């Protein structure tokens, strides 16, 4: 029973990682950039949700939508100002810019509101627990899981059934050819950043409810772990990010459950290195031979 309990916890946590990882994977798939600022977009989403609930007094869903909208705009602004001028620069220059943007978001937040943590209101979701064969599943984790699943299905729909999704897939496959076929590459990249950041914003609100404590530097570690999740599934592959996130969450919960909770963060990175060594393209990726 203990094991099933841990599995349920792991899946809830994993769905948060998966939501963040989707943003990493989409951006990487389209511009080959590790967007280090993504974890901080997640943090901003969490705070927008928090202020929406405490100051505007709205419920869970309006707060979620507000956070997603704010993060979508933030993601697009970051892309326009910081990444677009560097489209043709070296990879390392873009990466350093991303690190700079990440630090900027963190410390502007601290400047604006101080570094003290904030407690998320706990009355946002129904407190009722579900008991199934002796396993207690909190209403919260079901809610979290449900919201994440809906968002993921929505993303799959956007990517596979809409025009912008088709454009995104085309640009990710070959940006030059897509441009020749009349696809507006810049708009497509903007849309990718917007969607990815909106998912991170949603993850931020959910994370706040799950862990109840938020602070301006909270994006760093979940951001890195979500990145590990994206690599685990095969970076650039959307279903890979979902599976990678869920898998990472479950593994982490099991490690904590076995009593090694202090090593939990380390395990994520050990998995990362093992995956990179034995299957660098990730679980779902194919190895591409480099051409001369």
């Amino acid at each position, binding site marked *: 029973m203990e094991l099933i309990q841990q599995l349920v916890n792991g899946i809830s946590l994993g769905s948060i990682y998966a939501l963040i990882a989707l943003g990493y994977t989409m951006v990487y798939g389209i511009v080959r950039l590790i967007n280090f600022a993504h974890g901080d977009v997640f943090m901003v989403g969490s705070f927008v949700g928090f202020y929406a609930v405490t100051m505007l007094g709205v419920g869970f869903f309006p707060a979620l939508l507000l956070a997603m909208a704010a993060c979508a705009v933030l993601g697009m602004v970051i892309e326009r100002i910081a990444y677009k001028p560097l489209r043709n620069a070296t990879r390392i220059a873009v990466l350093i810019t991303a690190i700079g943007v990440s630090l900027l978001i963190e410390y502007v937040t601290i400047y604006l509101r101080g570094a003290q943590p904030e407690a998320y209101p706990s009355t946002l979701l129904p407190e009722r627990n579900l008991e199934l064969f002796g396993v207690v599943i909190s209403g919260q984790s079901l809610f979290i899981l449900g919201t994440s699943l809906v968002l993921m299905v929505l993303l799959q729909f956007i990517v596979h059934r809409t025009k912008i999704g088709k454009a995104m897939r085309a640009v990710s496959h070959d940006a030059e050819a897509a441009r020749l076929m009349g696809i507006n590459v810049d708009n497509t990249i903007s849309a990718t950043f917007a969607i990815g950041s909106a998912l991170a914003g949603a993850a931020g609100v959910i994370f706040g409810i799950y862990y109840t404590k938020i602070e301006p530097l909270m994006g760093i570690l979940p951001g890195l772990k979500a990145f590990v999740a994206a690599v685990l599934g095969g970076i650039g592959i959307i279903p890979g990010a979902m599976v990678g996130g869920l898998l990472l969450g479950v593994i982490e919960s099991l490690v904590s459950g076995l009593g090694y909770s202090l090593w939990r963060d*380390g395990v994520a990175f050990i998995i990362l290195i093992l995956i990179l060594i034995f299957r660098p393209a990730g679980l779902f990726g194919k190895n591409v031979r480099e051409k001369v």
Partner: protein
Amino acid sequence: MATWKRTRGFWVSVILAFAFFAVVEWLIASGTLNIFYVNTLFFMAINVILAVSLHLIIGITGQFSIGHAGFFAVGAYASAIMTMKLQLPFAVGLLAAGAAAMLAGLIIGVPSLRLKGDYLAIATLGFGEIVRIALLNIDYVGGASGMTVAHMTTWPWVFACLLVTIIVIANFTNSTHGRACISIREDEIAADAMGINTTYYKVAAFAIGSFFAGIAGALYAHHFYIIQPSNFGFLKSFDILIFVVLGGLGSLSGAVVAAILLTLVSTFLQNYPETRMIIYSLVLILVMLYRPTGLMGKKELTSLFKWRKAAQGGMNHGGKNTVA
């Protein structure tokens, strides 16, 4: 005479360096430099060693490593264990730090250097975090509260380490091995096709780079009384990476200048704690937007002087129209 002409620049620099050493030693001994300036100077030197050692890995060999703080941490703790737990002299601690970091470099380098570009970057980032988390969980070295270390770092030690680092890495760069490394940076597949043992050189550069990062760690540990795992997070790795990239990838003097400059900037910004990181990150973004090749590009300071160029082309390695 021909030998003199070729090595003139080298000896002039060494003599200038020793003159600088003597002046600073005299200033410290006479008490003209107060503790604040001495601290800044030591911190600058440690950062220069770190920047130059990472420059060998990223700037020369083109291996994108962003876990350098991991080697720094290994060195710091290894030397602290040697001097504080085993009561050995500082010199032994220093060598142990280098050796331990080099070993760590080999352990991480051999398997992961098969990875390329971003993947290597992620793997090294993961390695840096693993080192930090491992140190947090080992009670022998104090866990999260860290270790207290006696103050043993003195100016002669700092200067000697700095000089050795720069001479070794500059000479390595200009040797056959260095050329092989540069060819790997320019095009790994072509270098491989030309018969260069790319894995060997990548691992060698990684090992040398991490050795000196370990030395820097030992100097750091014995200067700051206390070392904690939180000093060696990935933000520290980013700091070192920023020295190298801001100075100009592939430029040794660029890395040195950037390390000195940024240490100064962050020291003086410490009076404005709330805006310090904002200014720092804005500078970073603006430099990358308007000068993505870094401040110096691939040029060396010496190539700004005509007479050096006429002599031997200085240390101006790397072609003009290549992309790192």
